[in-house]
């Protein structure tokens, strides 16, 4: 990847990085450089150091971060751009046994391997982020290491090192004008004479330019957790640890020029460069004695025969051949085979998974079972992968069920070994808030002031942090301390702070991975992480596969399991690709926006689009997924598409206008509007005359222009290209605008198709097995857009009988009960698909604070001892704590014993697990009968909400309906009546606040979803209104909104004008104890 993240943040003193280096005379090589990858120590980026060294005419520079090689790729990348510059990869090894620090510069590839192994050993034995090494460890890996022993040290310490290293050992001495330089040099020279080990001059560099001293001091304070005023001698006395000119260095070492010559000698001897690293794909997936290409071909065709039982078409065969040729030509067979291996393993364990990404965009992947997108039906743009593959390794993301992904990750560790596989690191850098916090803290600002400053950072990022903003935050903009804090903060932005692990990136190699890069422990148990992040991997060309977790896959997998286990399903086994395709009932449901819980199309924006889009076939779902995205919305592609679609629906003979025939080919599926990234690229190739490689460059620019522009140079080429081919200037401009709109958000078609597959699968389950659908979503929480209350409500509206949690019926998960089925049900008539199907029994997982182990104990006790008859009986057989019993009592789970909440609670409390000697409350049945106050119905409902997040009894708002009616507040159902409440009518609605969101794309608008006993109402509040009613909007349980109705087809919003807190209308709510003070 030519442009990686850190470069965009490059803020160094050099505006233009040098392109070549002219080593000056006298020469100098700096071999002791600490970059900011020695977290909170170095104060310059590796590239700043490299560029500065090049400008100064250094012969070479070594990067020696503390026990780490995390920054070497960044340095290498920079050094690669400077012709004639020599970067030496190394590390400063710091020991825990009192051995002085060693600067280690590996001579060749083998020595580098040993250094990686050494660091891996130290890090694997220590907790995350630390390293524990002893001299013995080093001696074991010392072969081929040019080594600098950092002074002060004494002769006995040198002995064993000299024995092991011989002529490769030096004594590294630096003169930092600390006053005793003369003495130190004399001592070092004496030691050198005594031991015969030559002196080597360094400057112990911490930053490329002395101006970074301020920042280095602040980082030092952060490291020590002190303020700058307390730091004292923990800081450096001066700013001498920068990259000095060779002349300066020679002057410093005037008394002993041999020390400088030694540095040049060592630099010349270190031949290793990261370019020597050869990465090889793992071979585990290939059987012995078989060529990988032959194996891939075999597997592909076996898969193809399974996919196409009626014979593989000529089109597909041609595709497969073309792809296989390319893959084998680029030596990527093993990559595909490894991905196939993971997918196969997941399948065999019954874990649902699906691939995405440019390389997944192929017929081969379809046949290997990595994706479910049929190349027969889709136009796959293999070019994108092919063009990408020239510069970077292939990229496939695989989504797994979120609850079972760890199994596959552990499988990878087990199959390839901890030494061959590791998670990718993710570099956490200083961002606005974290930066100002750390800097401000080090400068001694109060926590309060920091909060205020951090709050104002939004403006800062927009580049307009003005004095008035500061004054508003209660900060004096003229205060020199504040100014300094802001200056340093600006400098520290983008600095690495620590390494974390990537969400799912796994690196697998044929040779041990720890030969390439040090591996360390993650904070998570059983995970190991390499030191490089994904940008680094791209530079080195390492194979990475992203193993991501997707909640919906878990849900679909569970849903299919319920369906397969239902009484009527013997023998038939439902799988992702055997779900009946193109079922009109599913599309009817989707067109009605009846999609609560369905993957992707359940969000509010999607739901408002569905009735307009009226999906009728699978491809419509692909478009639906891709179109409601920031890219197309900002590119203004949504309206033209919808308009053409509506026209086409009204008049099937309507001819979609295409500017040319060649574009018809590209855009015919999307009615002339480019919706996918692939289309943008093809458009550029077909209509603007780009070569595929140029088109790929355009794609990269599209992905990155938000951050640093770069689209402009494509603009002219694109527009001129189109004009040259006879397109109208307006149209050319429009196309380009649309392409820029993609930004990072554009969806590739294959990606959308993979997602659409899951959309269809989940919609199908919802339509035909609503009870199973509700159960699988509830049992996969937390995930998706809706809380359990909405999912349960939706199930009931579709005719599913939902039964409450009960100690004598529930399990941990929600279950389906087939005994009676759903006979009577509430809800809208036409959608009662659940009637006659199984009933849904809520599981203990709905009870807040309930532990799974307790639930399992209850279930197994029930299995062996039969139905519980009393709490005492249950406690005895299930061995539960009183707290658990009370929790269940409060959740009203004892109805089958004839106990409502309060009596159950009363009994649960008596079964104290620590009976007091004199007050043994056991065997209470004989105790006095106590009449507890009866719980009013509204309290029951509220208690349901408090303990389970939902109620099956009544909706809380229904208790306030009478009062609300008096205030002329209408229900959600009434709002549907277009005649009574037309567009622009003034209405008041009220309900529980379900969701409050402020999407990044909608500037300053807050979306609120209210729920009452009849349905949900969507509210839009402008920022000004929201701010005015902020307190009410945030804290009211029952919120009333007064505003105007906005109608667009079936989509209804209320534009808020005023908001009121109506919580007091629900009896019982206000009697909480908070009012007494």
């Amino acid at each position, binding site marked *: 990847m030519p442009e990686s993240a850190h470069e965009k943040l490059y803020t160094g003193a050099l505006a233009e990085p040098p392109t070549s280096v002219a080593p000056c005379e006298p020469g100098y090589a700096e071999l002791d450089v600490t970059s900011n990858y020695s977290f909170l120590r170095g104060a310059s980026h590796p590239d700043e150091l490299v560029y500065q060294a090049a400008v100064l005419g250094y012969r070479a520079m070594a990067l020696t971060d503390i026990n780490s090689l995390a920054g070497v790729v960044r340095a290498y990348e920079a050094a690669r751009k400077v012709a004639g510059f020599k970067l030496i990869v190394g590390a400063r090894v710091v020991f825990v046994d009192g051995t002085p620090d060693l600067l280690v510069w590996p001579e060749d590839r083998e020595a580098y391997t040993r250094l990686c192994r050494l660091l891996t050993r130290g890090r694997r034995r220590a907790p995350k982020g630390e390293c524990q090494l002893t001299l013995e460890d080093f001696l074991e890996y010392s072969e081929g290491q040019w080594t600098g022993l950092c002074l002060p040290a004494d002769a006995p310490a040198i002995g064993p090192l000299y024995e092991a290293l011989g002529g490769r050992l030096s004594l590294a001495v630096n003169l930092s004008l600390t*006053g005793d330089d003369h003495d130190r040099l004399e001592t070092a020279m004496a030691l050198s004479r005594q031991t015969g080990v030559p002196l080597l001059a360094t400057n112990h560099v911490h930053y490329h330019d002395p101006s970074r001293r301020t920042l280095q001091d602040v980082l030092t304070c952060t490291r020590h957790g002190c303020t700058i005023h307390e730091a*004292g*001698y923990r800081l450096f006395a001066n*700013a001498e640890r920068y990259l000095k000119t060779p002349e300066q260095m020679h002057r410093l070492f005037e008394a002993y020029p041999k020390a400088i010559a030694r540095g040049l000698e060592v630099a010349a001897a270190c031949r290793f460069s990261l370019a020597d690293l050869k990465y090889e794909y793992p071979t585990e997936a290939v059987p012995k004695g078989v060529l990988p290409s032959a194996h891939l071909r075999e597997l592909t065709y076996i898969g193809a025969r399974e996919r196409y039982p009626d014979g593989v078409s000529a089109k597909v065969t041609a595709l497969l051949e073309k792809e296989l040729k390319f893959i084998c030509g680029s030596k990527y067979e093993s990559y595909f085979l490894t991905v196939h291996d993971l997918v196969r393993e997941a399948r065999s364990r019954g874990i649902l998974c699906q691939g995405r990404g440019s390389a997944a965009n192929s017929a081969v992947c379809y046949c290997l079972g990595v994706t479910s997108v049929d190349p027969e039906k889709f136009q796959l743009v293999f070019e994108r992968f092919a063009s990408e593959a020239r510069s970077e390794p292939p990229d496939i993301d695989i989504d797994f069920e979120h609850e079972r992904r760890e199994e596959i990750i552990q499988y990878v560790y087990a199959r390839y070994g901890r030494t061959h596989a590791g998670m990718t690191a993710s570099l956490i850098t200083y961002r606005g808030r974290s930066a100002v916090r750390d800097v401000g803290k080090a400068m001694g600002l109060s926590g309060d002031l920091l909060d205020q400053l951090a709050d104002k950072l939004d403006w800062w990022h927009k580049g307009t942090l003005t004095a008035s903003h500061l004054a508003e935050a209660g900060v004096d903009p003229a205060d020199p301390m504040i100014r300094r804090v802001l200056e340093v903060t600006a400098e520290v932005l983008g600095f690495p702070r620590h390494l974390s692990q990537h969400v799912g990136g796994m690196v697998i190699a044929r040779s041990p991975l720890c030969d390439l890069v040090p591996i360390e422990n993650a904070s998570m148990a059983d995970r190991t992480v390499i030191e490089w992040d994904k940008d680094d991997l791209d530079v080195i060309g390492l194979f990475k596969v992203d193993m991501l977790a997707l909640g919906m896959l878990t849900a679909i997998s569970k849903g299919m399991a319920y369906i397969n286990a239902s009484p009527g399903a013997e023998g038939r086994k439902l799988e992702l690709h055997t779900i009946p395709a193109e079922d009109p009932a599913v599309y009817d449901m989707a067109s009605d926006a009846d999609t609560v819980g369905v993957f992707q199309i359940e969000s509010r924006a999607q739901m408002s689009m569905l009735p307009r889009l009226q999906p009728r076939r699978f491809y419509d779902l692909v478009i639906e997924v891709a179109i409601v995205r920031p890219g197309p919305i900002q590119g203004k592609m949504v309206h033209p598409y919808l308009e053409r679609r509506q026209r086409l629906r009204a008049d099937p003979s309507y001819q979609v206008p295409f500017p040319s025939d060649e574009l018809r080919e590209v855009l015919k599926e999307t009615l002339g509007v480019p919706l996918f990234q692939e289309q943008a690229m093809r458009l550029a190739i077909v209509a603007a005359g780009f070569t595929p490689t140029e088109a790929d460059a355009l794609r990269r620019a599209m992905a990155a222009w938000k951050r640093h522009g770069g689209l402009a140079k494509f603009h002219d080429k694109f527009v001129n290209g189109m004009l040259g081919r006879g397109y109208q200037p307006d149209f050319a401009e429009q196309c380009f605008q649309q392409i820029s709109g993609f930004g990072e958000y554009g969806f590739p078609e294959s990606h959308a198709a993979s997602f659409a597959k899951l959309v269809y699968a989940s919609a199908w389950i919802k339509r035909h097995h609503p009870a199973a659908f509700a159960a699988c979503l509830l049992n996969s929480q937390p995930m998706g857009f809706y809380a359990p209350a909405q999912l349960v409500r939706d199930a009931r509206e579709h005719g599913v009988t939902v039964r409450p949690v009960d100690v004598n019926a529930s399990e941990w998960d929600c279950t389906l009960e087939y005994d009676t089925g759903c006979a009577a049900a509430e809800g809208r008539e036409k959608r009662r698909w659940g009637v006659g199907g199984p009933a849904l029994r809520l599981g203990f997982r709905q009870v807040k604070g309930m532990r799974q182990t307790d639930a399992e104990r209850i279930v197994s006790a029930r299995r062996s001892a039969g139905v519980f008859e009393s709490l005492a009986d249950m406690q005895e057989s299930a061995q539960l704590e009183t707290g658990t019993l009370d929790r269940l009592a409060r959740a009203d789970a004892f109805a089958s014993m004839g106990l409502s909440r*309060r009596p159950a609670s009363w009994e649960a*409390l008596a079964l104290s697990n620590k009976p007091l000697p004199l007050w043994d409350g056991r065997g209470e049945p004989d105790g006095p009968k106590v009449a*507890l106050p*009866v*719980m009013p119905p509204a309290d029951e409902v509220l208690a349901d909400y408090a303990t389970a997040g939902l109620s099956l009894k009544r909706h809380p708002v229904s208790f306030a309906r009478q009062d609300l009616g008096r205030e002329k507040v209408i229900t959600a159902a009434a709002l549907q009546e277009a005649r009574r409440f037309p567009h622009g009518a003034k209405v008041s609605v009220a309900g529980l606040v379900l969701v409050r969101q402020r999407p990044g794309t909608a500037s300053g608008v807050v979306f609120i979803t209210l729920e009452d006993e009849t349905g949900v109402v969507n509210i839009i509040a402008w920022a000004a209104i929201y701010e005015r009613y902020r307190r009410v909007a945030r804290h009211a349980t029952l919120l009333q909104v007064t505003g105007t109705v906005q109608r667009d087809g079936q989509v209804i919003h209320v534009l808020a004008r005023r908001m009121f807190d109506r919580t007091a209308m629900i009896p019982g709510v206000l009697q909480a104890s908070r009012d007494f*003070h």
Partner: protein
Amino acid sequence: MRELIVGQHIVGKETDSKSLVLVPTARYLCVHLPHWAITRRLRRRPELLDKPVVVVETVRRGGGGGGGGGGRVDVVDGSPAAMKAGVGPGMSLAEGRAICPGLLVLERQAEKDRLALEALGRWMTRFTPFVATGWPVEKGDKGTLHRPMPLLLNVAGCERFFGSMEIIVREVRAALKRFGLPARVAVAPTPGAAWALAWSGKRSGRIVGADELAEAVAGLPVEALRLCGEIVASLRNLGLRTIGQVMALPRETLPSRFGEALLRRLDEVLGARADLLLPLGYEVPVEARLEMDGAVESLEVLWLVLQELVGRVVTDLERRCEGARRLELICKSDPADGLPPVVRTVALSRPSRDGRRLIELLRCATEKLDCGKGFVDVRLKVPLHERMTAEQMCLLESEVQADQNGFEQLMDRLTVRLGAENVVCPVAVASYIPERAWRGAGFHERNEGVGQGGFATAIARPTVLLKTPAEVRVVAEPSDDREGRPAQMTYMGRVHRLAHVLGPERLAGEWWRGHGKVRDYYDALDETGRRFWLFRVVTQQEESVSVRWFLHGMFL
């Protein structure tokens, strides 16, 4: 009918039916100060009165101090403006900020709150000698955080001095109003009931007698029993909202369900069990005073007076097993003369009640005193006195110890004579800048700062540091970058040829104080063997570069 003394203030009456009825005869007045934490703070910062201000407390998470940092910041109390905006106790600070963006935040000062409450309590002793500040905070109960401590006055029998209980209540309320303290007041036969009424009562100033106690308490919410949050939640969950509802339950069912605390509290509130309160103690100050008919007009007589006063103070200290750390002498003239009193303070290195020594120090302090028109009122206070630990004398160390004592006595005397600001000890400060690397600490605070910083480097520092560096003329060795060593220095008209020079030691300025200049220090020996410490500063202003040299110290 027979009366029995049953508890602290409880009388049992044996009625005709031979059953024992407990009738509390005590009267407790409870002053509940709902916003003590914020009121106390706002009294000192009247400019914040109408602003939304909250007092917060950081609740450490997990306890045990593990993991460091982290924790929830809870709002303990809010100013009227904050409460009006909807920010109040029991909220997290983050929540409060979300509601009221301009919120000002003060950290809770629990100890100061307590001390101020005690001071208010002492003031209240004009109503009754028995004033207590609530109950001790219970560990682990989050509820107590938001339950401010009350003042409890045992006013039984005091109505005789004031006329009636109503008058006492009226006067207490009037006083609180005068002080500007929002408060609610109630009187009941038990402390628990008085607090419950004051805390939850809508009406302030209610007086409840023994016969109406049960009835009055029954209507109060269960929170008024001062139970921990869990029990309250448990009771409320069962629908038991008032104390009356709990009282109606069979007693034997309660302990197994709610622990013994509930019954205990119930009994305490109703007077069936004594409640333990610790009244505020009154510490008698150590002081002595002599008022004279005729004015003391000479030092000699004054010293005789002092002798007498010291004698009395020492006797007092002996009884307490304590020694004086600070003495305060206040001499007043005849009020008719209108002269301000003369005040002298004497500090001691260690506690002492050695009369001779104290007199000696006082004499030193008054040596130059102008008796003016003479004093009629001489008072000696000991505001700071400490326990004297018995010191074990070792045979061989006694001389060392005597020396040490002698030295300290000398220092005490010098401090008295010369003034505390003139007797200082140097204490190391961690700073590279030589003039900042030490500070003069008063003799009595010297122990606190020593050893914190130590010295930066192994490099020698001069024995004499000039107060301000003196600019000197220096001839330096020629060099491209103006980094040449000094070769010759002219100081006070004398030319020193520098034969031997060590350095440079480069010290960069403390940028966070706005000092950016860099100094290069040299340790230089001249031909006669005198050793100097001098530095060079290079200043660059646009094109012109100026090099200046300063002498900063000498090695003697």
